Each structure stands twice: as C-alpha cells, then as structure tokens.
C-alpha cells in the first residue's frame, strides 16, 4: 500500500514543477533564453547535454584528421595556419564543455563518456584525410557545413549554448576561407594538383551533406528540438541551403561537385541533390566507419599520456596551497 501511494504521488507533478513548467513555457513562447539556474524539463536538459557534449566531442576528435597533416604541410605559412586551426578546434571543444557543464554534468564525466565510447561525435571525422587537398576540402565543405548548421544555433534557447556558438562561428569563418584558398591554389596549379583537389572534393561532398543529419522524415527528435527553439531549421532545410551555396562556390574553384542531380526546385524553393547513402551514415555512426577505431584509440592514448601532467599540476597546486596556509 505504502509503495502504491508513493507511486501515485510521484506521478503528479509538484506545485513547484508546475510553476517551473509554466515559467519555462512562457520564456520559450517569448523566444527568450533559458539560463542555467532556471527550472527546465528534464528532457530539455538531457537533450541539451547530449547535443552539446556530442558537439564538444566532435571538436576534440576533429583535431585529429588535420593535426595529422601539420608536419607535412607544404610551407611554414600553411603549417602555422593549420596549427592555429587545430588549436581553435580544441578551444571550441572547451567552450562547449564549459557550456554543457552549466547543465550539471561535470567535465570529467563528459570526458569519460567519450573515452568509454558511450558518447557519439560527428560521423565526418571517421573519414580519412588522405592528401593535402583534403585539408582544403575539410575547411571548405566540412567547416562550411558546420557553419551552416551552427549559425542558427547562435539563437538556441539555452543561453550558454548560444553564447558559445557565437564565439565559435566567428572563428569558423577563418577555417572555411583557408580551406577554400587551399583548393583554389591547387586548382590553379599543375594538372596533378587540380586532380588532387577534385578528388578531395569528390570524397568529402557526400559525407559533408550527411553532417546535417538524417532526412526530416527520419529525424524523430528534430520536431521537439524545434519546439524548444534549440533547432531553428530542419536538417533538410539546412542541407538544401548549403547545397545552394557550394554549387555556386565550386564554380569559382574551377572544380565540380560529384552530383548531377543538383537543381533548384522553384516550387519548394529548395535546392535538391542526389540520393545520399544513409546506410553508410548509420554504419559510421555505429562505430564501423573507416577511422572510428583509430580515432578513439588515438584519443585514449592522448588522455593516458597526459595523466602525469594532470597529476603533477594538481600536486604542485596542492603543495603551494599548503605552503600558503603555513605561512
């Protein structure tokens, strides 16, 4: 009997929760922002922690394909640029972890979820970066898709997320432009260089389009995220907009996109593209992409190799604090 009563009590939302929900609904309806200390539905909090930490993990894992090319960049200038870019990715990861922590999940817990393989990150980083031209294609297409996705997130209803995105978007535009420049230079180089650029675009085109996520009909969480003003546009809307932008930009590069189905649909006002291989997308997301194992292994290795640094710094801080207490 006692347990039954308890269960009934739990099913009824408390007065506090009801007031919280009403206040939350009002803020969302006004298109205002939710801040960390506000009451929020548990699902809203969970959705954000999942989305934001996945985003942070993607930035951290995203350092790998490019860091891989730092030693082989063709000039000192390109090396310096690439290092700055990889450092930015680390920074973006940290902004996002910092914002995610405001939802009550500590940093080391988030980090552990990545190391344990419990958390996902963007499928795009499980593709190999085979040639120098891939640095160009990643900057132009991968960062380009990221920007198209992230600009609307600057207006996400959760304050700390939006603020982190504003900072990130400012920095991403450098990433995209430097990628475009790499491709442009290669495209205007020798026939072999131009071929290298075209080959990189061919390989990154479809995976970049898949970065926007499954089609709207296959994206069950999107609707709720849009109702909560976390997402402002659907996956297909953003993808279509991106296709429209790059089909124009590719002409300046003197290259082509590996898709003869691209066309503007006057009726829907959307850019259309060829079929994407969603089976491949789900395979990569499930951990069976070309580089998943390698990326995770490298990440764990880096974490373990840094353990002594973290311990030493903590020990030193501890010693200093004790000295200060004695003095």
């Amino acid at each position, binding site marked *: 009997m006692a347990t039954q009563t308890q269960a009934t009590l739990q099913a009824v939302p408390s007065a506090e929760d009801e007031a919280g929900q009403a206040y939350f609904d009002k803020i969302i309806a006004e298109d205002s922002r939710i801040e960390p200390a506000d009451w929020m539905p548990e699902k809203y909090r969970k959705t954000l922690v999942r989305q934001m930490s996945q985003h942070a993990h993607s930035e951290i894992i995203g350092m790998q394909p490019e860091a891989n090319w730092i030693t082989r960049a063709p000039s000192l200038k390109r090396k310096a640029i690439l290092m700055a870019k990889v450092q*930015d990715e680390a920074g973006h990861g940290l902004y996002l972890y910092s914002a995610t*922590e405001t939802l009550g999940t500590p940093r080391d*817990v988030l980090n*552990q979820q990545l190391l344990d393989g419990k958390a996902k990150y963007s499928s795009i980083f499980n593709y190999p970066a085979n040639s120098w031209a891939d640095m160009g294609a990643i900057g132009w297409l991968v960062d380009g898709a990221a920007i198209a996705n992230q600009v609307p997130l600057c207006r996400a209803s959760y304050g700390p997320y939006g603020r982190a995105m504003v900072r990130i978007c400012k920095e991403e535009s450098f990433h995209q432009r430097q990628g475009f420049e790499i491709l442009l230079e290669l495209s205007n180089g020798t026939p072999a260089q131009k071929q290298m650029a075209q080959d990189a675009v061919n390989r990154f085109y479809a995976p970049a389009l898949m970065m926007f996520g499954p089609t709207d009909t296959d994206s069950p969480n999107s609707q709720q995220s849009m109702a909560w003003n976390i997402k402002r546009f659907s996956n297909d809307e953003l993808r279509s907009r991106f296709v429209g932008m790059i089909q124009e930009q590719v002409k300046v590069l003197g290259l082509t996109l590996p898709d003869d189905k691209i066309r503007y649909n006057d009726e829907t006002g959307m850019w259309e593209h060829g079929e994407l291989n969603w089976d491949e997308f789900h395979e990569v997301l499930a951990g069976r992409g070309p580089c998943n194992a390698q990326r995770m292994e490298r990440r764990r290795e880096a974490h373990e190799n840094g353990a002594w640094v973290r311990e030493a710094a903590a020990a030193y*801080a501890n010693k200093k604090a004790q000295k200060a207490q004695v003095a």
Partner: protein
Amino acid sequence: MATGDQTAMAKPVETVETPAAEGHDKQAWPLWEVFVRSSRGLSHVHAGSLHAPDSEMAVRNARDLYTRRNEGVSLWVVPASAIVASDPDAKGEFFESPKGKDYRHATYYTKSEGVKHL
C-alpha cells in the same frame, strides 16, 4: 544579475547529485570563471569558464582559451565556488521593488517635452 553561467548554477551543481554526475572525480581540477576586459575603458565581461589546478594556470589557460585573437587586454579568473548569485528560485520577486517606480526614469517626466537642453 548573476555573473557567471556556472555561478548561477552553483546551487544545483552542489546540491543536486544528478545521475549524470555519477563517476565524477572529486580530485578533478576546480572550475574557474573567466572575465575579459576587451579594451581599456571597458569593464571585464564574463567570457566562460575553464578547469585549472591553481590560479596561475587558470590565468594562463584563460589567455590561451579566450584571447587567441586579441580579444582582451586584461583577465580575471575567479573560483566558480566563490561567486554568490541571487536566488534563482526567487525569479521576479527579488527584483520587484523597482517595478512600478517609473519616476526613477527620465522618460516619466513628459511636461518638459520640447524644452531645449533638458
């Protein structure tokens, strides 16, 4: 206004052991809130937070994390646990008193409309 993002959160973080917090390492580096003065003549503004073992490392990490593009000429780092925020549950009530006191604003006084330099 509550200052840092984390500070406004100080209460829930400390008192609510969410299931997600399981496995949290109590020895983890503490959290610092970072404030950046973007140029002389302006106040320090909250930029975000970071983890560091001590104040010295916190300042260095803050430089690397929040001023990679000349965003600042001065930095403050504050232990997140040292910031006291207004009670988030009080919502409007705490700030109730100034409401309805329009006479504290210049716009309340309309009779002087059109009078120059006033």
